[in-house]
């Protein structure tokens, strides 16, 4: 593809989702990421109990990620045809898993801060 700049990629994603939806999704991802960093900074440590639940949610996120892509396209898992397809498939699953883990960890930490967690122990 000619001139595949970062600006071009942004333009393409704006067209895929619509400008409003795309930037809302970017904003949502940024807010969750910032909230994640905030709780890490606030707590100065990882709460392993919360992390465990976050890890347990990862397969759910992976399945949801793949399910979303298959739902939005006329394709199925039978269509995976070469090594790059496996890589893309795994990347989608990994993105879903990591996104879900961050989301679950952040929500737990916001709802139940570390101090309260320690107080309960």
């Amino acid at each position, binding site marked *: 593809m000619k001139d595949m700049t970062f600006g071009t990629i942004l333009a393409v994603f704006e067209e895929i989702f619509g400008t409003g939806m795309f930037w809302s999704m970017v904003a949502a991802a940024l807010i969750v990421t910032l909230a994640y960093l905030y709780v890490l*900074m606030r707590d*100065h440590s990882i709460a392993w109990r919360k992390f465990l639940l976050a890890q347990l949610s990862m397969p759910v996120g992976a399945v949801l990620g793949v399910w979303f892509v298959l739902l939005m396209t006329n394709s199925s898992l039978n269509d995976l045809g070469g090594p790059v397809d496996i890589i893309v498939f795994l990347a989608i699953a990994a993105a879903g898993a990591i996104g879900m883990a961050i989301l679950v960890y952040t929500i737990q930490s916001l709802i139940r801060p570390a101090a309260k967690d320690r107080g309960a122990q």
Partner: protein
Amino acid sequence: MPFTLNRRQMLSLAAGSAALAAAGSQTATAAAIPTQARIVIIGAGAGGTALANRLVTRLKGAQITLMDPRVEHLYQPGLSLVAAGLKPADYVVSKTTDWLPDGVTLIAEAAAEIDPEAKFVATTSGQKVAYDFLVVAPGLVLDHDAIDGFDLNMVGENGIGALYAGPKYAAATWKAASKFAEEGGVGLFTRPATEMKCAGAPLKHTFLIEDITRDKGNRGKAEFHYAAPQGSLFGVPIVAEKVRMLFGDRDINAHMKHTLTAIEPGAKRAYMAGAEGSTIEMDYDYIHVIPPQRAPDVIRQSGLSWPDKWTNQGWVECDKGTLQHLRYDTIWALGDVAGVPKGKTAASVKWQVPVVEDGLISAISGRAPTEIYNGYTSCPMITRVGRAMLIEFDYNNNLVPSFPGVIAPLEELWISWLMKEVALKATYNAMLRGRA
């Protein structure tokens, strides 16, 4: 193991994110060039629209006029999907005016006369528009009358399909094709002898309907025949070989040197001109008709066509690298109408638009152009629902993959299908807006 992050690290991360976001919004915004130039663009299709959007940011004060009677803008790469029941007809339809920038004038009429000596274009109502620079991008004409016995009103009935004719006909094509996929019989898939837009589409339609028939469990009662005037299945030899192998795998019979000349809808019989002037009869239950394709009459009548090449088709005589007319240096050809060996696809337009833009800007600012079109064309060759081959090539029949070593051009891949189904229309739309 504790993981800690202090406030300074947090701020660094946030600053990095902001810088990344800002980088995305930056575009190459060179200062607009002041000019009084009158630029006329015939055609507000993919090429004309994308060019207009780019010119308004590059030029200040230019009078840019587009001429196009078409109210609807068609995303033509989507027609293959409509004709296979994978997308609704409105998937390809938008309004011409949706894509045009402020500061340009749209005359909703066709060009009726071009005078390259006196430098004006007359519209169908007789309005004369003078120009300093002219871009000819009206698209092409589907010559359905060249197929005896065929009429567009027949599409969708009696096993007749013709997806090129537009969204309504692509949807009707699916009606006829899906009936064939259910009932079986003889499927006959054709292509014309002339140059044509998206030369991969006849193959895509064949592959898709074969796959759908197989998927429905009816492959055993269906025969597939692909008849083409050319000597090989694809213009690029290495791709032709791959398609030949796929045809073998899928039990699709190829009939080369077969040119569809007529159909007899009642008898469901097609007549083909053979290599030695013979006439070959082929019976069908489903036929996909793609008519000969030519430049619009106004191009041929204005003396802009090649005098010695494609004489029955009339494509604009232009340099294949700069797309500038060989006899009139204030005229450029863009898109389907350009008389170049390859490039009647939206992907080609994407690569041609910056070349014409550079030619125009260079002429206005008195410098030599630098952009050259190398014949790039892309064909996401759908081989079945869910898989495609991302084939890209140039004038020299070299494969020029965008993702070498990652996306193999001659491999049937899911990622190539995803690109066709998800990313292609978005990229096309971004191109129309002058952003890709």
